[in-house]
């Protein structure tokens, strides 16, 4: 009798925890907020920005899945986890646009678990690395084997 009551309580806690997880919602951003988060202006032409994006993605161990330099669009994925815990796949979509003879813009969109989700830290970090890559000769960067 007592055991069944403990089981009932444990089940209730588990269900409540699952409901709470299910209720978690992503922050909703307005379009100007999203633009500010996702887009950075660069003081280099679009072709150099595009090369910087490729370099940053490879450095951060993304697998580039799609690339169209003419259209300025890239899609890259990243897999983490293991067979025991399961694999988690995240994706970034990057649009590079020319905004002048020596200026361009880079917009990064992130998604995870099959849904578009704004990952502020990941976007900011990638922008930082892209900035480094567009302003550093490719031969001066460190390309070491990963762990």
């Amino acid at each position, binding site marked *: 009798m007592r055991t069944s009551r403990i089981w009932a309580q444990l089940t209730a806690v588990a269900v409540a925890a699952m409901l709470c997880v299910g209720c978690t919602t992503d922050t909703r951003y307005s379009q100007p907020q999203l633009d500010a988060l996702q887009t950075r202006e660069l003081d280099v032409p679009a072709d150099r920005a*595009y*090369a910087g994006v*490729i*370099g940053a993605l*490879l*450095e951060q*161990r993304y*697998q*580039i*899945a*799609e*690339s*169209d*330099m*003419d259209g300025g669009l890239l899609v890259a994925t990243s*897999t*983490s*986890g*293991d*067979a*025991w*815990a399961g*694999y988690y796949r995240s994706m970034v979509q990057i649009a590079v646009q020319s905004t002048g003879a020596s200026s361009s813009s880079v917009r990064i969109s992130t998604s995870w678990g099959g849904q578009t989700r704004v990952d502020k830290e990941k976007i900011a970090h990638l922008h930082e690395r892209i900035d480094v890559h567009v302003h550093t*000769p*490719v*031969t001066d960067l460190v*390309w*070491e*084997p*990963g*762990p």
Partner: protein
Amino acid sequence: MRRALGAIIVATALGSGCVAPRTLTRSAEIDAASDVAFRAAAATLLDDRQVFDLSDGDAGLVAGGPPSSVYGASERTTFWVTPIETERSFVIVQVHHVGYESAEALDRRLDWLLGRLRQRCILGGDVAPFDQDDQDDDAGGAPEPGGPP
């Protein structure tokens, strides 16, 4: 019975750790124009019996993987070729591996891929025929240009 079950659980946990995704990168400067190096990279993937799943010549990107997965393992190889001078290129090769290969084996694989690309740049179609055993047995780096298969 309990010990056997415990051993199975521990072995499975340890084994699953070996199939964590790993991404390794290696770079090299190549004495060839970027278009030559790009074609050499594509030829290297074909030599390695890989199937292209990405090609963007303007960006210098080409990637592929084996036609089928073996025992749940999978792999993808990406080459990025970028010009640094008229007749000089910088090549980055990335191998993303989900499987049981050791870090040393993946290191050798990166060496082999860059070595083959160099061969292709120098010799073009005159490169020695590729044999899968050649790559597996090669304990230390790139094959000699024009050497035996």
